[in-house]
């Protein structure tokens, strides 16, 4: 099976391998194949700019590697995976996120790992170097794992400035660098960490679940936090709670749409239940979170589904295709920006991630 040029590809990382789907019209989807059978794939994505796909393959016994593929059907194993220096006392347990450097950093690949750290590769994942400015951050001794582990799960490069980047670490904080990773500052102003006995601002102890950059305004970010959905505007320098209008402020997945101001989230019932609130509903904003539309056409009811932090993806096309993968093994998709949804795959292994992209 080959993936035809001119397709849209959807990559679903599951606890039991990677599924790759493709479609010419985003109506009829074909399975190109299932890869890394039985092995957890926390994240996989195709980078059309680089013409390469990457998969974070985390063997329970033999550790993590970032595999790559041009064809999406034949995968190449690298010589080595990200590894901490021996003297650190840490060992990379999982790769949670793989992200290209974007237009400002062609040829660069980043990996976010557990225990939390950032790695950089300049040879398509064949070798990795730790971004030790982050690991040496003054707050590092205070970093504590959440239920998902101490994971660096989101990497958001700046498309215009190679020196700037934002990352998210669960149960710790949002961090940013403006000097290419040498130094990092926390970026929590406006967030609250409600598990502490008092609400005073802290450096760490926040719980970013997923971050995304606005499609048009590179200074605007969206955040699904443990307690609320937030918008950040660089000029204001603080997070603004935009949860009003959502059925729950809790959730994991988040994706930016193709138009400025647009984003998608899937609220879940509390941090104890972590399932959809009786029915599957996606929420869309077109104005940076100032208002939300509840989208349910084509989505199941009743439904108590779990969507994890990489469980919402967008394909960057116009109109945007949005994809939601569940731990119950379904993939829901819309090709009209969310007005109508279809099930494009079902009965997969439990899904942890979904990404989508043109395959030009």
């Amino acid at each position: 099976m080959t993936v035809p040029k001119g397709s849209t590809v959807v990559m679903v990382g599951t606890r039991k391998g990677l599924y790759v789907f493709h479609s010419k019209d985003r109506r009829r989807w074909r399975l190109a194949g299932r890869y890394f059978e039985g092995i957890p794939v926390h994240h996989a994505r195709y980078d059309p700019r680089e013409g390469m796909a990457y998969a974070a393959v985390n063997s329970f016994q033999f550790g993590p590697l970032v595999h790559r593929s041009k064809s999406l059907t034949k995968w190449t194993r690298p010589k080595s995976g990200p590894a901490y220096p021996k003297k650190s006392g840490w060992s990379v347990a999982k790769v949670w996120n793989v992200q290209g450097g974007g237009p400002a950093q062609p040829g660069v690949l980043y990996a976010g790992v557990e225990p939390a750290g950032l790695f950089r590769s300049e040879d398509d994942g064949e070798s990795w170097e730790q971004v030790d400015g982050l690991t040496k951050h003054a707050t590092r001794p205070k970093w504590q794992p959440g239920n998902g582990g101490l994971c660096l799960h989101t990497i958001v490069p700046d498309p215009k400035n190679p020196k700037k980047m934002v990352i998210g670490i669960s149960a710790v904080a949002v961090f940013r660098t403006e000097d290419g990773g040498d130094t990092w500052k926390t970026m929590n102003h406006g967030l609250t960490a409600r598990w502490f006995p008092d609400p005073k601002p802290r450096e760490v102890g926040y719980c970013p679940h997923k971050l995304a950059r606005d499609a048009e305004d590179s200074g605007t970010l969206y955040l699904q936090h443990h307690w609320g959905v937030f918008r950040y505007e660089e000029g204001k320098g603080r997070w603004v709670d935009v949860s009003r209008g959502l059925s729950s402020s809790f959730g994991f997945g988040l994706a930016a749409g193709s138009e400025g101001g647009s984003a998608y989230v899937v609220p879940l019932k509390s941090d104890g239940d972590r399932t959809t609130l009786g029915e599957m509903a996606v929420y869309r904003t077109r104005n940076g979170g100032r208002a939300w539309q509840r989208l349910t056409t084509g989505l199941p009811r009743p439904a108590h589904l779990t969507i994890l932090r990489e469980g919402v993806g967008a394909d960057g096309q116009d109109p945007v295709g949005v994809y939601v993968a569940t731990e119950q093994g379904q993939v829901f998709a819309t090709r009209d920006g969310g007005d109508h949804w279809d099930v494009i795959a079902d009965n997969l292994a439990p899904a942890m991630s979904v990404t989508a992209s043109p395959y030009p």
Partner: protein
Amino acid sequence: MRIVLPAALREYARGASEVKASGRTLGALLADLDAKFPGIRQRILEDTGVIRQYVNVFVNGGQVEEPDPARVRVEDGDTVHIIPSVAGGSR
């Protein structure tokens, strides 16, 4: 020495289930193995250099309990088995 590889690591050795390597300790043996098949040592050892928690190493049928492979003596003629832990049941 003869090293018996699990199925998951045979792709490093072009599909071979058994390979040869030498060294006076298990650590040196794995270094020699890695020189022949780059990357394979990282699958057996943690970044800290100890044997991965869910990888078992047997020398002549006896399970290695010392986590630091540099402290495990091996000799010519030994047979080393590398075996992943039994998995399954939780998910």
